[in-house]
């Protein structure tokens, strides 16, 4: 357990940084698409919404992972670190990826199939957060 604990928290921290490093540039890219009036982006309301959500969720969930890594050791029961960190990482990655894929092969009124990753990720995330709340010292 002693080996697992720092490893799982470190993985969460690394995932948080990676997620932040991809989500923030996504925001820049979206801004550029607006700036240069790229019609493939602007004329699809679903795509615009999906990618905006991907950017927002990716950024905020990355911060959540970094915050988790910062407080886990001090405030969470150590035997729960590994499972909570795993589910948090899964949720934090699946949700923005799902939103992004939802806006790739979308039709006019619906996102594409990739959107199913979003509720899946949400389940992991909720599960992790509930368990984190219960494991708080």
């Amino acid at each position: 357990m002693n080996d697992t604990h720092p490893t799982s928290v470190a993985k969460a921290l690394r995932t948080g940084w990676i997620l932040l490093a991809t989500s923030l540039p996504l925001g820049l890219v979206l801004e550029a698409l607006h700036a240069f009036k790229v019609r493939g982006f602007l004329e699809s309301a679903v795509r615009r919404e999906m990618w905006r959500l991907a950017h927002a969720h990716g950024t905020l969930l990355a911060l959540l992972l970094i915050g988790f890594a910062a407080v886990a050791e001090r405030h969470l029961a150590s035997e729960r670190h590994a499972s909570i960190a795993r589910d948090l990482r899964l949720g934090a990655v699946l949700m923005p990826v799902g939103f992004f894929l939802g806006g790739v092969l979308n039709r006019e009124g619906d996102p594409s199939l990739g959107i199913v990753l979003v509720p899946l990720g949400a389940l992991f995330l909720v599960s992790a957060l509930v368990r984190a709340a219960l494991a708080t010292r």
Partner: protein
Amino acid sequence: MRRIFPVIALLCVAPLAVGLALVWGPDPVAVAAREPLRERAADYEGADSCAACHPDHHASWERTFHASMTQLPERDSVLGHFDGRPVEFYGRSAVPFERDGAFWMRIPRGEGEREAQVALCVGSNRYQQYFERVGEGEGGELRRLPILWHVGEQRWMHLNGVFLEPDDTRWDAHAASWNDNCVFCHNTGVQPRMEASERRFATRVADLGIACEACHGPGEEHVRRMASPLARLATESGTLAIVNPSELAQAESLALCGQCHSQRLPDPLERLSEFLDRGPSFRPGDELRGHVTPVTRETPSVSSKRPELFRERFWRDGTARLTAYEYLGVTQSPCVKGGELTCGSCHSMHSGDVHGQLEPELRGDRSCTQCHDEIARDVSAHTHHAPESSGSRCLECHMPRMVYGILDIHRSHRIEVPDVRRDVEAGRPNACTSCHLGETAPWAAQAMRAWWGERYEAPRSRPDGAPLDVPEALASLHAGDAVQRAVYARQLGREDAAEPPRERAFAMASLVVALGDGYPSIRTLARRSLERLERELDLGLAGELAAYDAFGTTEERRDASLRLLELLRARAAARCAPPRPGQLIDEHFAVDLERIVQLLDLQSDHVISIGE
């Protein structure tokens, strides 16, 4: 140094993913352009591309009837009740129904019937017409089906009962083509692409309905230029490569609306085949001259079979008496000739009430007093009427209702001063007697002379020869031509007339007689007026009026009129003031049929037949 590469790779993930998605994902521009009848050609981009950068303006346009003028038949665009219930006109029936998610009609053909699938809907405000596809291929001709859905009355109507023309029991009489007719004004970026030799069409439009580029001009160059954020920052209005209607000079601003709100012919007429191929050449920012010539009363007919084709669309003094001539009317007005008026002075395309495209305050006097504020300060001094009465409303006198269109009577857009002699001798409605419904033309002329001077003379005669001692409204209802009769069939039931409903038994009696008019649309207008008066007076006629069918047989209509006249005679005394002499009804509320028949005999034999 080795660690920098993963960082760069991470930062590139999102741009790469977005780039790949845009390259391999579906292209929304191409998807929109593949919709039936649509093609983004000839510098047009389509309203969707405007929405991307101007979402608020797009939304404010999208709620208008301009936007929904022409639509593909879908669940949320079809207004008619395709419920499988038969609707009967002139002894035969049609059945609008749904099958496999599509909208169909079973309609008479010869002695039998046929089925027609709705391929296009035109109209969304007053009524909605339906078109079927005829001929091979997607670009075949779209032909009008014989019944339409009337939004106000919430019922199906035969086209013959909506257009201004006598009863015509032929079910295919109005099977007009969309491709060389409606398409011009009810869509944007029109290319009829007619092959005249075989009468085949490959019609395409940039947008179904009247969309952004109808007023702002083709947007391709604007979209190209504005793709650069630096260009947007540096751009002044002159380099936008798009028209801002509010910055146009008066003539160009008027032409913008006049490209559709005026009947017109190609200028010169020989360009007709060019228009039927590539569409009209007018673009926003142009003057109409050089592209089209607005039709006037003097325009020679283009139909050898109908030499009166254009003349009958105007009152004798050249004032338009049909809708879609607003441009002509307003350009005949002193407010344009000697002032700065444009359509945009009153109408607004992105705000206000979509019914009329008017801001609420501009629906009334404000439309005039925004310029003529000196009159607003003491309105009675100008009108000689009580300030709150309809006689003090600017539009009632200067833009009276005398224009037929879409089964209603609308305001004239020729802004002018009423003149009883001019109006009566031109055989057109007069503002005074459109409100003082029980008064004669000489009475109105005398009042005008007393208030505004000797230049207002009494009329000497009516073109139809009806005596001037008969109230002008009643003489016009019975002896006038079809448009006059339609106007007064509506006006005799108006809520804000000088005579309150209890003093209008005379109007009811004459309106009941008008239920037997030879034009079904006039009968419908008379029925609506009677219903309005009945709601005020509660004479017990409501049931009989509800049962009255403007499309019934002559005998059915005659019997209904006789029953209504009898009910009126029996019940009016309890609720109505006694009629005055000369109002074609005696003190016992019995209609003076002998005099009315004399007036009816003065009706011209000339048949007016005006479709839309």
